[in-house]
């Protein structure tokens, strides 16, 4: 059986499995016990997602809602980066415009929440249509550059329009009646996430979805097969804009008061990072990765809640542990003698210096000057480190790592080595 190794570049859950692969797996059907086990695990996951936020007090349930909203935004970027290979460095503009549109429609125009979300989705799509229509003849790096400039343009210009955003003062965005409490709004957002996931899934099963995957692999070959590359990329961009608009609207009503400074370039980078760390083209991975990033601040807060810690008590050990873990991973993967020797040596040296602050008075003073890593800052510092680790070591992200489990849940044989393609990379677009 082991002789039958098929190395097909099978990228995503969305790709129709190649014929040989289907033959190889067709013979396997889980027994009754197997299905029960899968059902139990699936039910457990569902229970955690559905019930766990109920068990925390209302003011903390909001954090989970943010996780769900981030997942929607992550899926929006996944459509663009994962499916077409184009990258948007200005997604904060799409999310922000969605947020302000919904807030404007609900607060100033006095319409209800449903119309607000619809308007946000429509404006998000329209925005993408215009920007993409003008600029999508440019691809790859240059398109990323245009979106970057557009993001700052929105920050400086659109987000300062007084009637839309209230200038710097912000715009109130009340929640819909019946969903005012944090717990209820969580389920509303979860429903929207379900909707987005469903649309995404169905979309990728259409001819258009396959065209997207084809043009990502190689735009020229796809064009030669009759795929209208520019049109389908624009289509994906519009879908991404609609998702981002929905995410933005929910974000507005989650915070109930939108301020324009939130939608800055750092946020756009965090969006990209969470999508890439989650694993492009893997819906489950993107959802997990995005939610993880949204939950990072509360996680750090939780670690500190137990007892009042001194400034450097937690900060430094966390950094050292992270550095040690990264270095060890690198050393293990490279299996080079040099790295295997110097990495642990460096870690040992740093740890010694840190663990014996009493012996190194000069350094102790310096270390005490280190400000605490506040929960709000955590995604900005930890996030990019995770990103760089993902890109250099695990290019498939979370999605690729959990693939054996998701495949098992779908009724396949559990295969720890089933990681899809060996090298899942961000895109295959040459600029």
């Amino acid at each position: 059986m082991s002789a039958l190794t098929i190395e097909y570049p099978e990228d995503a859950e969305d790709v129709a499995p190649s014929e040989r692969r289907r033959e190889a797996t067709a013979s396997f059907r889980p027994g009754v016990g197997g299905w029960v086990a899968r059902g139990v695990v699936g039910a457990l996951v569902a229970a955690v997602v559905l019930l766990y936020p109920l068990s925390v007090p209302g003011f903390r349930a909001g954090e989970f809602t943010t996780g769900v909203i981030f997942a929607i935004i992550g899926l929006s970027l996944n459509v663009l980066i994962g499916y077409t290979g184009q990258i948007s460095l200005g997604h904060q503009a799409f999310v922000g415009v969605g947020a302000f549109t919904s807030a404007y429609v609900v607060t100033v125009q006095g319409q209800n929440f449903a119309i607000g979300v619809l308007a946000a989705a429509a404006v998000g799509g329209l925005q993408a249509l215009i920007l993409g229509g003008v600029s999508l003849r440019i691809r790859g790096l240059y398109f990323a550059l245009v979106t970057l400039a557009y993001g700052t343009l929105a920050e400086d210009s659109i987000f300062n329009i007084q009637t839309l955003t209230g200038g710097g003062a912000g715009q109130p965005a009340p929640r819909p009646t019946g969903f005012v409490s944090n717990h209820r709004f969580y389920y509303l957002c979860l429903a929207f996430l379900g909707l987005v996931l469903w649309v995404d899934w169905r979309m990728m099963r259409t001819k258009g979805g396959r065209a997207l995957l084809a043009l990502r692999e190689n735009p020229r070959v796809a064009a030669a097969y009759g795929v209208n590359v520019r049109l389908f990329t624009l289509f994906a961009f519009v879908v991404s804009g609609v998702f981002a608009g929905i995410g933005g609207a929910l974000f507005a009503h989650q915070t109930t008061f939108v301020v324009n400074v939130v939608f800055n370039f750092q946020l756009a980078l965090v969006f990209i990072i969470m999508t890439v760390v989650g694993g492009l083209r893997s819906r489950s991975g993107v959802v997990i990765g995005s939610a993880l990033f949204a939950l990072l601040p509360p996680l750090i807060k939780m670690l500190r809640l137990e007892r009042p810690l001194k400034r450097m008590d937690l900060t430094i050990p966390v950094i050292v542990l992270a550095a040690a873990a990264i270095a060890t991973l690198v050393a293990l993967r490279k299996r080079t003698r040099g790295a295997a020797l110097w990495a642990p040596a460096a870690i040992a040296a740093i740890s010694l210096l840190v663990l014996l602050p009493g012996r190194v008075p000069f350094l102790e003073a310096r270390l005490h000057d280190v400000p605490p890593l506040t929960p709000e800052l955590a995604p900005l510092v930890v996030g990019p480190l995770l990103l760089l680790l993902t890109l250099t070591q695990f290019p498939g992200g979370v999605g690729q790592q959990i693939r054996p489990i998701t495949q098992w849940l779908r009724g396949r044989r559990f295969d720890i080595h089933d990681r899809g393609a060996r090298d899942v990379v961000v895109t295959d677009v040459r600029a």
Partner: protein
Amino acid sequence: MQQAVVYGVITGAVYGFVAIGLVLIYKSSGVFNFAQGEFGTVAVYFLYLAKTGWHLPYPIALLVALGVAVVMGLLTERLIVRPLFDAPRVTLLVATAGVALVSIGTQVWLGEAKPRTIAPILTEPNRITVLGVFVSDQRLLVIGVLLAVAAVLAWFFSRTSLGLAILAASQEPTATDLVGISVKRLSSFTWALAALLGRLAGVLSAPVQGFFTPGQLTLGQGGLIPGFTAAVIGGMTSLPGAFAGGIIVGIAQSMAGSVSWLNALRGSQAVVVFSLLLLVLTVRPQGLFGSRA
């Protein structure tokens, strides 16, 4: 109006520095380096730390900043760019954006999110007038250093074997390796050089303003986006084009702040830079000075 032009040229000179760094790296690694602005901002932070925190004299503080920027450039090359050498270019773009974000996050974390003041090296504000506009010595220094760097770079890339080797490696890395030139070493060298230019942009521009904030040269209209626009105007591959592009962007931006009907528009500078970028990319993607790649 005249003031807008004169100040635009000076701001443009800083964008020129950023743009040259971007072009250098694009030529050698094929990467859009989003960390370019951060090489400058980090250098400014270390300049501030060395000067105010460690009480070192200004020249030595400048040297410290120089060292830090070069080390950062080399580390980025070694830890991020080289492992991803075979990865698609867009992956590398995301990776360098990650480097920029680590850097900004660390600045906010360790340096706190408040503006810090930094004094210019040359303090005389209005000794000289150009076109009837007072130009401070620090601003003159920016222009002077840019011109000097331009001359040195022009000489370096046309007369020295190292400069020619870099050009060769950017055109045909495999063939360059085959004739016995280490492309890897050249790559390291280019990144160090680019970091050095970023550092020049940082330590020269921050004192003109008198203060600096985290991510100064990356966020908003501060450096990276105008720098990229300048590089694109220059065709992404032409060093003199990047200089000229920087000046063009600087003047355009400065005009946007002073022409009244434009200034009425909110975020007029961002609008002008964005329009310029879009215009060049859609109408003349090879830039004003570049050749068709």
